[in-house]
């Protein structure tokens, strides 16, 4: 009996289904899913906690210094943050550079009007695998994903989605804040 269990364990251990290298990928996020919680110190030393943004519209921008389309989008995002920040938009950049020094060099040359934190492979997996840039996710006031853009997206498209999200459920925060 004991020998049988041992053989069974050996067979299971050697079966392709148990092989570690071809492990399944993290579940890809889709519109309507809850945005995975994260809390990171940004590159200015301030904490950014996604949960603390509840009630705001959050745009998560996965970018990197080597990503030409991402660099084109940063001035658009900075403008959108300046334009809609007072109405409840919070953009956060997640830099997927291989080193912090590279991100800091880019930030020294580029104007960001929103916080930027460092990402890594673990963070990428948390968000279903960030396996190509640019990648952006718009998160609603309830913490659920409203839109996902993979690849370059125009400022007009983002503007339209952001204004629609700001107008929906909860409306313009300025009208509700005392």
């Amino acid at each position: 009996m004991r020998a049988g269990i041992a053989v069974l364990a050996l067979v299971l251990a050697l079966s392709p289904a148990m092989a570690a290298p071809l492990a399944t990928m993290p579940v890809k996020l889709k519109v309507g899913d809850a945005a995975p919680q994260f809390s990171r110190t940004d590159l200015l030393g301030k904490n950014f906690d996604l949960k603390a943004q509840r009630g705001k519209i959050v745009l998560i921008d996965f970018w990197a210094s080597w990503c030409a389309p991402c660099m084109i989008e940063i001035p658009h995002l900075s403008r959108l943050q300046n334009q809609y920040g007072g109405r409840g938009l919070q953009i956060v950049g997640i830099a997927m550079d291989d080193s912090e020094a590279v991100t800091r060099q880019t930030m020294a040359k580029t104007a960001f009007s929103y916080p930027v934190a460092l990402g890594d492979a673990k963070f990428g997996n948390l968000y279903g695998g960030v396996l190509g840039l640019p990648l952006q996710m718009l998160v609603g006031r309830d913490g659920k994903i409203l839109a996902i853009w993979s690849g370059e997206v125009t400022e007009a498209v983002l503007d339209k989605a952001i204004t629609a999200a700001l107008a929906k459920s909860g409306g313009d925060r300025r009208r509700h804040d005392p």
Partner: protein
Amino acid sequence: MRAISALLCLLAALLLAPAGANAAAGDALTIPTAVVIQPAELAAMLKAPGAPPVLQVGFSVLYQQAHIPGAQYAGPGNKDEGLENLKSHVAALPHDKLLVIYCGCCPWEKCPNIAAAYNQLTAMGFSKVRVLYLASNFGADWVDKGYPVTRGG
């Protein structure tokens, strides 16, 4: 007159220079179409005996999340140290060995790595380099299509 001659000489030099010499780091469009292979073709090659070595010449943070099974990290192609990394990975291979490189960090025509890596290998004398075409990125054109993936670095 002298200025016009100089301008004509410069124009002639630019027109006559080989395509490879003009290839900027981000110019995947300079890679000859004859060496470009599609994901389905590579997936079939990987199943067959004697599959070629596969090298990821993009960024480490992407490789660490997921890569083609058996692929080694040999990048990034947009940095001198990345090209040195690539050189060291192929140093022991015969120059007529079939090998495959890929990146998929961003859309093909915007990739800063793949053309530089291809040019490096051809400059070293490798005659059978194949370049995996990933139109949008590795996630969309390989992982989401259900081709085999290994997670982790």
